[in-house]
């Protein structure tokens, strides 16, 4: 028989406000096995933990029930407390009387009654708990970073700095991501390339970092410390190790009309291309959709001009298998498509552009060499209208846009407006906004400078319609402060499109079994306390894949993710989860049903010798579970027709005891 101690937490007034904690402690004292019960204001505090430790010693407790917040919050804390008191940490059960009781029910009698029942279920379970010892598994001391934007670059550099090997997988031909497309960065206005490209070079030169560019992750198996990942290196028809990046091929290629996605299709590139001058790796790539040689076998100019002999038209996709201890997701974001926003005439007029397109127009390496010219006629625009929140902060019922705030648009629009007024003081710049949101160091000062020093017109109100009218655009909008409708003409309209997670994130989340929110942003293990970890052990989050972020925040999060990875890789062995499946050999009939349902291949069969009552021996085929591979889902326990399989920590007997306690 167990000797159980029950500890009821007030959590200040969080629990005590709707649950009579004294009554709960008293009621649970009468449960079988309970020899001690207490209540305290903050059980998780040092004093509360000391109370538990003292009770374990004084009353010789063998099991502990803590009625407190969610086990997802403090189960680990109380397990450590139990271990410190000399108990097996798995002799602790939590009754969740905060998130699932006091916070969702309003009156005290109801809350108290439910808390007692939840406590009873936990006591019933602890009565059947047995001490468990976790197994150990080795750690592969190498990390994988998926995505080579500023988030991935910073994470990889920080991990490599600590002495661990890192691989970056980037789906584009070069690393750099969105930041490589930007002109200047707020609020300091230093040029994006000047701060990004040295980091890209650092990555290329770091011996610990390998770059798989133009590659994708296609399969992930295994678990924390031991991931098996398959990477697809897409055929670029150029031998990476031979290409010197001289660019001769890109000059001579006769196929000149390929849309240049790096410049958001505002100009063209050749069928063989290097995305931009500072690309890393600086290797040419052939666009198979446009290359004449690959399409109909006629051309071959690039291979003739390539002095290094790097062109290989027969190259195939290559699959690489690699082992990793930790995986960092840094898949980033994209502006949403403007196709559904007909009111802004984005598809009708070339002079309605998105902010990222504006960024390329003002970039010295962009299609206009940094001169702000209208895409339609190459004239200098004299009146520019910026429209904020295009697709951000939309109604839930409005399927065109996103409900959330994209966070970066207010600042980059202030930047665009300011830079335009700085370079071309004769230009008239108007910004339409819902609110201007500038929470960040030196952000509000920056915005005020745009208004006060640079004379940008900020008008509170939304743009209803943009109508192309000859060379001009007519912008219909409301001015909420003046309370009137406006109709102004403009030469260029710039839309601050909402940002959304990259489309590759959803299939990747499925591969990693990492969870996502309804907007396809990755969810963190805890919104406040574990912001860079995914709930899936060994998977970490960096940058805008977790939510809209500006560059300083992204870099900070990238560093935080790296430090978490380093903490993991620094360990030689990982303590596993002891709640794994276990087969009762006496009951197993070797039918293989469990083996077929196990998603991890943790179950194998072996022939075992059994002693019969008549002293003869019998060899029988029985299941055996590899505790290092088993993740403890319990699927096999239900599939087993003879009931031989059970799950430690969530044994059938224990769950039935909980059901009984609840239904009593």
């Amino acid at each position, binding site marked *: 028989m167990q000797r159980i101690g029950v500890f009821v937490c007030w959590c200040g007034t969080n629990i005590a406000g709707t649950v009579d904690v004294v009554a709960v402690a008293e009621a649970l004292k009468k449960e079988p096995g309970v020899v001690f019960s207490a209540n305290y204001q903050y059980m998780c505090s040092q004093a509360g933990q000391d109370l538990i430790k003292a009770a374990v010693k004084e009353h010789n407790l063998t099991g502990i029930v803590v009625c407190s917040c969610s086990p*997802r919050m403090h189960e680990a804390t109380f397990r450590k407390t139990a271990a410190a008191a000399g108990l097996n940490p798995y002799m602790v059960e939590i009754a969740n009387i905060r*998130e699932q009781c006091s916070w969702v029910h309003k009156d005290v009698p109801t809350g108290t009654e*439910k808390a007692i029942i939840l406590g009873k279920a936990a006591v019933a379970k602890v009565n059947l708990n047995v001490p468990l010892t976790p197994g150990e598994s080795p750690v592969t001391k190498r990390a994988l970073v998926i995505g080579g934007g500023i988030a991935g670059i910073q994470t990889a550099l920080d991990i490599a700095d600590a002495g661990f090997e890192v691989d970056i997988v980037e789906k584009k031909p070069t690393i750099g991501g969105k930041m490589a497309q930007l002109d200047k960065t707020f609020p300091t206005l230093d040029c994006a390339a000047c701060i990004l490209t040295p980091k890209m070079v650092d990555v290329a030169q770091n011996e610990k970092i390998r770059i798989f560019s133009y590659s994708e992750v296609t399969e992930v198996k295994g678990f924390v410390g031991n991931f098996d990942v398959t990477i697809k290196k897409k055929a670029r028809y150029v031998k990476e190790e031979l290409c010197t990046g001289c660019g001769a091929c890109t000059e001579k290629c006769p196929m000149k009309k390929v849309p240049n996605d790096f410049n958001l299709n505002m100009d063209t590139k050749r069928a063989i291309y290097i995305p931009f001058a500072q690309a890393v790796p600086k290797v040419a790539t052939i666009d198979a959709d446009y290359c004449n040689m690959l399409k109909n076998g006629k051309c071959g100019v690039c291979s003739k001009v390539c002095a290094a002999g790097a062109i290989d038209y027969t190259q195939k996709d290559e699959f690489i298998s690699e082992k990793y201890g930790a995986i960092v997701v840094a898949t980033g974001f994209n502006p949403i498509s403007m196709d559904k926003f007909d009111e802004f005439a984005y598809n009708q007029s070339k002079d309605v552009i998105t902010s990222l397109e504006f960024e390329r127009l003002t970039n010295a390496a962009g299609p206009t060499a940094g001169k702000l010219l209208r895409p339609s006629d190459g004239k200098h625009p004299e009146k520019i209208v910026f429209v904020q929140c295009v697709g951000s902060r939309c109604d839930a019922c409005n399927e065109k846009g996103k409900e959330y705030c994209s966070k970066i648009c207010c600042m980059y629009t202030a930047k665009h407006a300011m830079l335009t007024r700085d370079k071309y003081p004769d230009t008239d710049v108007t910004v339409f906004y819902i609110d201007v949101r500038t929470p960040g160091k030196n952000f509000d000062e920056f915005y005020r400078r745009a208004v006060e020093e640079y004379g940008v017109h900020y008008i509170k109100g939304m743009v209803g319609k943009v109508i192309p009218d000859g060379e001009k655009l007519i912008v219909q909008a409301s001015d909420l402060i003046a309370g009137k409708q406006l109709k102004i003409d403009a030469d260029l309209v710039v839309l601050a499109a909402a940002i959304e997670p990259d489309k590759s994130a959803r299939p990747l989340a499925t591969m990693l079994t990492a969870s*996502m929110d309804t907007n396809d942003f990755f969810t963190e293990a805890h919104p406040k306390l574990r912001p860079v970890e995914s709930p899936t052990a060994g998977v970490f989050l960096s940058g805008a894949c977790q939510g809209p972020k500006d560059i300083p925040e992204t870099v900070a999060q990238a560093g935080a993710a790296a430090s978490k990875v380093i903490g993991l890789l620094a360990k030689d062995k990982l303590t596993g989860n002891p709640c794994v499946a276990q087969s009762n050999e006496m009951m197993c009939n070797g039918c293989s049903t469990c083996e077929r349902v196990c998603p*991890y291949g943790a179950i194998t069969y072996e022939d075992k010798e059994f002693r019969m009552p008549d002293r003869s021996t019998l060899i029988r085929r029985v299941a055996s579970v590899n505790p290092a591979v088993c993740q403890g889902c319990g699927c096999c326990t*239900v599939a087993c027709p003879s009931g031989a399989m059970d799950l430690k920590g969530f044994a059938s007997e224990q769950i*039935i005891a909980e059901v009984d306690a*609840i239904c009593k």
Partner: protein
Amino acid sequence: MQVKEYKPLIVAFCCNWCSYAGADLAGNNRLNYPADVKIIRVPCSCRVNPTFVLRAFQRGADGVILCGCHPGDCHYTSGNYYTRRRMALLFSMLDYLGIERERTRVEWVSAAEGAKFAATMNDFAEKVAALGENKRLEDLRCKK
């Protein structure tokens, strides 16, 4: 004679990785649902043996709901698919035994869907309450 207000007894099996966290989120956001719902934490919805559901009905539960990760998002890759099939079979058997379909349910609730968790429980509790007490499988020998 005083009539005691009827309160249904509902057992909810929740996957640790999604709906249990979804229930926590409902708590964080103070979204109310009936106290009749009592949650049992399981590592995965596929840990729920049909016998657990039967046991709950035997002991007098009025409704049983299983919550797991959305199809394709199972923390253990494929557990919720097993749940879906197993419970489809079990529920049709229970239907045959006279346990109304509204008393059993499988629902997908992610860790981010606190509002969906609360809404699901409100809806389920209301439907079960409308059916009244469930005596069909109750085993009186279990009642002490």
